[in-house]
């Protein structure tokens, strides 16, 4: 009895999980293929999956496309990195000094709900549409999940853990560095992972709205305004963006699992 209950609680092995995910992706592709080939969806607007993936593969050989993709990846990475560099210390400050938190709360609560996409034209007017445009918006949008997770993680630090170190005569800064920061690190990492997704959305949408320069969003934009629209190109671009997002997420999840084994051991392994 108990053995059965136990075996059900054990999470699926890594290979099983990957097999399930791959099956899901293949089924989805098969569905698109079917809809397109049978004419249920107009092949003009929804090319068969094999054509999209085939186009995506040939695009890799295209130097122009590679340059577009690299520029986007660069903007994404710089933006996300800067956001982390700003948000983590800011979160530590706001999370550990209640007065500053209270004083800045109204400003933070005002800024946070503004959809960053709405700022794209404004920021373009102020600083132009180059790389700095994308980076600025990516930083702004990915700041929030990191900031909030850092503050949330700090709030969860066990007071007894801090007291244990204080009892050995360590001051507030040492306690912050040696207890609060490592203890909040798993939450900060989750914040960065959420921000990585947001950053990708902002990179591509900024490029599409700007509609000039270099970037995978620009590539998609031009494929869209062509007459007739190059649907396979648009979807191949989307395919690469999506794949990039999935890969980054998987990498970060794996890194978190490795680095925060103690955290998972403490709170129970969860998917």
């Amino acid at each position, binding site marked *: 009895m108990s053995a059965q209950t136990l075996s059900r609680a054990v999470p699926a092995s890594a290979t099983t999980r990957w097999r399930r995910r791959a099956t899901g992706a293949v089924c989805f592709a098969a569905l698109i293929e079917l809809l397109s080939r049978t004419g249920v969806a107009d092949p003009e607007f929804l090319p068969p999956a094999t054509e999209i993936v085939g186009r995506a593969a040939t695009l890799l050989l295209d130097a122009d496309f590679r340059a577009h993709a690299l520029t986007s990846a660069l903007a994404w990475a710089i933006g996300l990195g800067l956001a982390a560099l700003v948000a983590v210390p800011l979160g530590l400050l706001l999370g550990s000094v209640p007065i500053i938190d209270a004083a800045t709360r109204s400003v933070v609560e005002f800024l946070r709900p503004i959809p960053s996409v709405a700022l794209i034209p404004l920021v373009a007017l102020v600083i132009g549409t180059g790389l700095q445009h994308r980076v600025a918006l990516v930083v702004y949008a990915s700041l929030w999940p990191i900031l909030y997770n850092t503050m949330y993680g700090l709030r969860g630090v*066990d007071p*007894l*853990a801090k*007291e*244990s*170190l*204080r*009892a*050995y*005569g*360590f001051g507030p800064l040492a306690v912050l560095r*040696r*207890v609060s920061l*490592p*203890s909040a*690190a798993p939450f900060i990492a989750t914040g960065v992972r959420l921000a990585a997704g947001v950053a990708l959305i902002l990179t591509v949408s900024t490029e599409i709205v700007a509609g000039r320069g270099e970037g995978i969003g620009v590539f998609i934009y031009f494929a869209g305004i062509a007459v007739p629209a190059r649907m396979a190109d648009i979807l191949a671009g989307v395919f690469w963006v999506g794949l990039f997002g999935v890969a980054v997420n998987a990498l970060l999840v794996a890194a978190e699992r490795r680095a*925060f*084994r*103690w*955290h998972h*051991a*403490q709170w129970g392994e969860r998917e």
Partner: protein
Amino acid sequence: MLEIDNLSHVYGGGTPNEHHAIDGLNLSVAEGELLCIVGPSGCGKSTLLRSIAGLITPTGGQVKVEGNLVRQTPDNLAVVFQDYSRSLFPWMSVADNVALPLRRKNMDKSRRREAAQEALESVGLEAAGRKYPFQLSGGMQQRVAIARALAYRPTLMLMDEPFGSVDAQTREDLEDLVLKVRGHHQMTIVLITHDIDESVYVGDRVVVLSKAPAHVVGDLKVDLPGPRDQITTREHPDFVHLRAEVGRLVRGHATV
């Protein structure tokens, strides 16, 4: 070694939730003594310990450690808390946990590592240094916490219900461990417990606190023959007599 003079502490003074934890408590502990403090639960024992450790500033009276008024955490003081799973740092190996407080001691890395290993040996965990706290049993984790305190070579070690969260067998082992290490290290120990038998078994002296606001209602010298032994000491008539005496004091029915 430790002088507590007319100590009082009030939580939330002036608010409707005002709570007098300690009121007019006087106590002095001699160097090298192992003092057990017992009292009913919620009587302000932990508040007393936090005042001695300089973790809170008492609202009245004063605490002196080695003649110095406690304003912040005194040097050469170590604390072992009840909740080992929260007081050990789960992201660090056992050895790193033990070595961490030594950063306050001007020791280089290899010296810190040596001292940590030595302390782990003295609690019987020489092989566990590379493990992580969550890979150890509760009793072993509390041994790590004790090793962390020992490595620091404190002159005063405070223990806040250190064996409250382990099973009975482990508890006895840990009691004997404390008796053993105090023989090797020259230090004063103040051990807070709510377990009457434990206070008599471990202590040279037992101080009984009243319920909150806490003050001292009894102060007994424990004079038991021979080295302490879990079986023979506990059946000795003096032990039985003392534990009854402490029990009466804790329950507020003192006969003396």
